C-alpha cells in the first residue's frame, strides 16, 4: 500500500471491525477482516488489541468453541464512544484531503 496507516487509524479500523460483530469476534477473524481492508502484518494486531483492551475500549471473554477455548473481543461503551469520535475525525480529515485532490479548496 502507498499510504501508511497510523496508530489511531489502526485503532479505529480494529474497533470498527470488532463493533461489526454484536456477539463479539476473535483474534484470528479480526486479523483476517482487518487485512481485507488494509495490508497490515499479522503480528501488528495483537499489540493493538491488547492496548485497546487495557484502555477499556475492548472487553474479552473466553468461550467454548469446538471443544476448546476461544477468546472473544467485544467493543465496550467507551470503545463505541471512541469509535464514533474516530469516525467523525476521519470524515473531516478525508473530506479535507478530498477537497484538495479535487482542486476546490473551499474555505
Amino acid at each position, binding site marked *: 500500500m502507498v499510504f*501508511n*496507516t497510523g496508530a489511531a487509524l489502526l*485503532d*479505529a479500523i480494529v474497533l470498527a471491525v470488532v463493533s461489526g460483530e454484536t456477539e463479539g469476534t476473535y*483474534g484470528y477473524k479480526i486479523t483476517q477482516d482487518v487485512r481485507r481492508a*488494509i495490508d497490515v502484518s*499479522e503480528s*501488528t494486531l495483537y499489540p493493538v488489541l*491488547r*492496548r485497546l483492551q487495557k484502555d477499556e475500549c475492548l472487553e474479552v471473554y473466553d468461550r467454548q468453541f469446538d471443544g476448546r477455548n476461544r477468546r472473544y473481543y467485544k467493543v465496550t461503551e467507551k470503545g463505541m464512544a471512541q469509535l464514533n469520535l474516530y469516525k467523525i475525525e476521519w470524515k473531516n480529515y478525508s473530506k479535507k484531503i478530498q477537497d484538495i485532490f479535487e482542486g476546490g479548496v473551499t474555505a
Partner: protein
Amino acid sequence: MNRKDFMAKLEQLLRSIPAEERREALQYYEYYFDDAGAEHEEEVIQELGSPEKVATMIGADLKPGSEENGEFTEHGFTDERFEEKETPAMRGDHTKRGDRYSFHQEENQNRGYSGSYGYENGADRQAKPRTSKTLKVLLIVAIILVVSPVAVPVILGVAAVVFGLVVAAFVMFAAFVIAAVAVAVSGIAVVIAGMIASIGLPSALMTVGIGLLMFTLGAIATVATVKLCMVMYPAMVRIIVNICRIPFHGRKAVV
C-alpha cells in the same frame, strides 16, 4: 519451524516482560494458531515473520514511555524492521530497536485521535541525544531558577495587562449601555422640566419635544447596546477560554 518451535521461541523471548503480559500474549497466539487450523500453520508462521519480530512488537508496546514518543505504521513495523536488520549502521539490540516503534497515544487518551501522523526517518532517530531524565529535570530546574527573577515580574506584568484589557473591554460595553440609559432618563427629565417651567408655551413645547426625542433615542440605544453586549460577552468569554486551553490541549480550540 513449526508451531511448537515458534511458541517456545516466543516464550523465551518474552521472558523480560511482566508475567501477566507474557501469558496474555502467548495465549493469544495459541488461540490464533488454533483458529487458523493446522492446515494454515505454515502460512501463519510465515505471515507472523519470526518469533523475534512478534516479541519485539509486544515488547515495544509495553516499554515505559512508549506512549510519548514515536509512531508506528504497519509498514514501519514490518518492512523497516527487516531493512534495518541488514543495515550495519544500526546499533543496538532488539529491545532498543523496539523502543523506536511505539504508539503515539498521548492525545488519544484524552480526546481521541487528533491527526498526529508522522514519520521519523532512521537518521533522525539515531541522532537523538541520549540524555537521562534526571539530567533533563535538573536542567529545567536550573533554567527556571536563573530565569525566574526576570520572568516572574514580566509574566505578572503581561498577565496584569491582559487582565486590564479584558476588564476594559467588558466595562466598555457596559458603559455603552449605561450611556444609552442615561440619555433616555435625561430625556424624561427634560420633558418634565419643559412641562413645569414657566417659560411660555412655545418654549415649553419645544423643550418637551426635545425631551421626547432624547428619550426615544435613548431607549433605542439601550436596546441596541444590550443586544450588542449579549453578542459580545459570550464571544469574548469563548475567545478567552480558547486561549486558555491552548497550553493544555494544543492548538485545536473548541468553538
